[in-house]
């Protein structure tokens, strides 16, 4: 019983998280390469080499940071990604946690992510990270609002706050057709929440990488990993309907 209800789901989440994050990093490298960025190593080893380099590097300090929050924030962000992934229905029978209120739980993951990203920037006690943190709060609150409309839009036809029910409700008609705006909006929220690509405003270049500007070594590795991992549940959530009809 413990094996079925605790160990297997946790293992599943961890494996999907790590593999997914790696694939996100590979994809990112591949897109950069396709866009003409100069590159020397292959896309498959580049994320691993980068991770290894960060592991060999020292974690640095700033002047009087809030140590606990600074070190915890990347880990908490990763934990939020794991929670988000835990309620994704991979198949009709394979759902790590089929919570009755999983739609609301995903909403709170988004809200808590805002807090964690703000803390990551604020606790470093340096200017550029702080501005990145402020920037994300301003944006994050609007991402949450958009995301809420999308989530309400999928919960209403399903008459349930449970992702497995949401999927089941799409057997006749996919939500992509019923609510054509939902998918693009949700993808935008996903990119915004992980500040990826064109929506990288919290860790942007005009802030010397914003909230991440003051971290190095293993904490930075965890932060990068968490960002990539957070994209996985965002992407997986929308992929879910495709097997419902298939």
């Amino acid at each position, binding site marked *: 019983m413990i094996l079925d209800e605790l160990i297997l789901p946790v293992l599943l989440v961890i494996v999907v998280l790590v593999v997914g994050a790696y694939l996100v990093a590979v994809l990112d490298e591949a897109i950069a390469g396709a866009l003409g960025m*100069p590159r020397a190593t292959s896309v498959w080893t*580049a994320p691993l080499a980068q991770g290894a380099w960060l592991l*060999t590097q020292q974690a640095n300090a700033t002047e009087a940071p809030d140590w606990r929050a600074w070190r915890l924030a990347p880990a908490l962000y990763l934990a939020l990604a794991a929670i988000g992934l835990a309620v994704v229905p991979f198949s009709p029978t394979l759902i790590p946690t089929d919570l009755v209120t999983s739609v609301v739980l995903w909403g709170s993951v988004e809200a808590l992510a805002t807090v964690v990203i703000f803390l990551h920037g604020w606790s470093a*006690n340096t200017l550029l990270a702080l501005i990145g943190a402020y920037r994300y709060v301003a944006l994050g609150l609007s991402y949450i609002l958009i995301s809420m409309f999308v989530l309400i839009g999928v919960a209403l036809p399903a008459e349930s706050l449970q992702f497995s029910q949401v999927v089941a409700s799409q057997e006749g008609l996919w939500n992509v057709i019923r609510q054509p705006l939902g998918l693009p909006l949700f993808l935008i929220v996903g990119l915004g929440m992980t500040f990826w690509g064109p929506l990288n405003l919290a860790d942007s*270049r*005009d802030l*010397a990488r914003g909230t*991440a500007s003051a971290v190095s070594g293993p904490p930075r590795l965890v932060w990068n990993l968490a960002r990539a991992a957070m994209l996985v549940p965002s992407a997986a959530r929308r992929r879910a309907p495709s097997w419902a009809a298939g």
Partner: protein
Amino acid sequence: MAVSWLSRLAAQASVPVFPVRGLHGEEAFYQLALTPGIELVDSPRHASILLVAGGVPPDQHDALRRVHDQLPAPFATLWYCSEPLAELASATRLDDPGALPGALMTIHRELMSGKRGSSPRLLPDEPPNPWEGLGDDGHGGEGMMGGVPYGRPMAMNMTDDLRDGLTLDSLTVILGPFLPMLPPGLSAKVTLQGDLIQSWTTRGAPYPIALESLFFQALQGPVPIAALERARARYHLKRLHFALRLAGLDRLALEALRLAFDSHLSLKGVAILRRRLMRSGFFRLTATGQGRLDEETARRAGGVAARAAGHEEDWRSEDEGYRQLGFLLLTQRQGDTAARWRQTLSEVEQSLQLAAQAEHEAVHTQRSDGVETPRGTWHRQWPEEASDLLDDLLPGLEWDEAMSTLASLDLAPLSPWSLEETGGAPITQDIGEESRA
């Protein structure tokens, strides 16, 4: 065993380099941006090599030491065309631009394999500001005031607010001279509220920039207009590269830089770049109607900034050679960031057009008592350094607007040395060939 496996893997990573752009260090920065396997990072905390490109004035050595000590161990330094700090006498120095990428990769590999030790810390590991908080909680004995914890006084400014009427959370910091977003050498004392700039006081002017030697030759005698205009286009494209990189448009930034280093730089490439720029939203999102210069300030800023504000100021319209080519002075009206970039793009295109035409007819400049440098007119006196105009321009802007405004303005003074003399670009050989042809 596990560790050596890890470091072998780490040695394969692209080399993260934090460039400190010193006096005339720009060219190395552009060169490395195009080199595969080298990643120019934005924060010293993300680097394994500190590259000091170009000289650093002695009064800024302390700032350099602070940047040096921010790199996480293990890290190394490389001094390109620059004298290492006295404490780091044994550090690697290099003057050959061709050997730069190779040297950086070797240093990174040696660091990872343990063959090279980490650079020593130069400053004592203690807070830069002594703890001066009063009372039990550091914020002061009476009420909320008093005490200077972390060197930051409690905010007490009751001056008129620029935006939201809340004046109490202001944070004052000193930026520069090596902040990668600012022009190299520029330093300023800045008060911010959130990301809104409340006040900006320029403390140190940007380092002088070196022009290609053709601009100096134009003051001695006639030079081929084709080569001169190509040099001008290259200069502007490099500035555009910096602004696009800052805006997060890495692909377009590299495209601009590749054009700048392309010895067969043609109008077609720039037209494609312009089209992509329009589509990328650069003019709608980054270079918006911010940072508007009034008439007097625009005149002081000179060059592109002046023409973007409607001043018809261009030495080329005085020159008979250019008149022969039908040179038409271009201007914009708004004088803001977007107008400056539109003007820059138009001038690049115009330069290339002129170059093609001049090459065909082998036209040379006629007057040698002045030259239109990319930075402004050089006639009797140099274009003056104008970084103090930022003090009135930047307050009221948000951080991203301020940074894109700064990138669109070219305020640095001109160096008395040419790019070739300062250990310049490999591109110069091509110019020589073209001008002989």
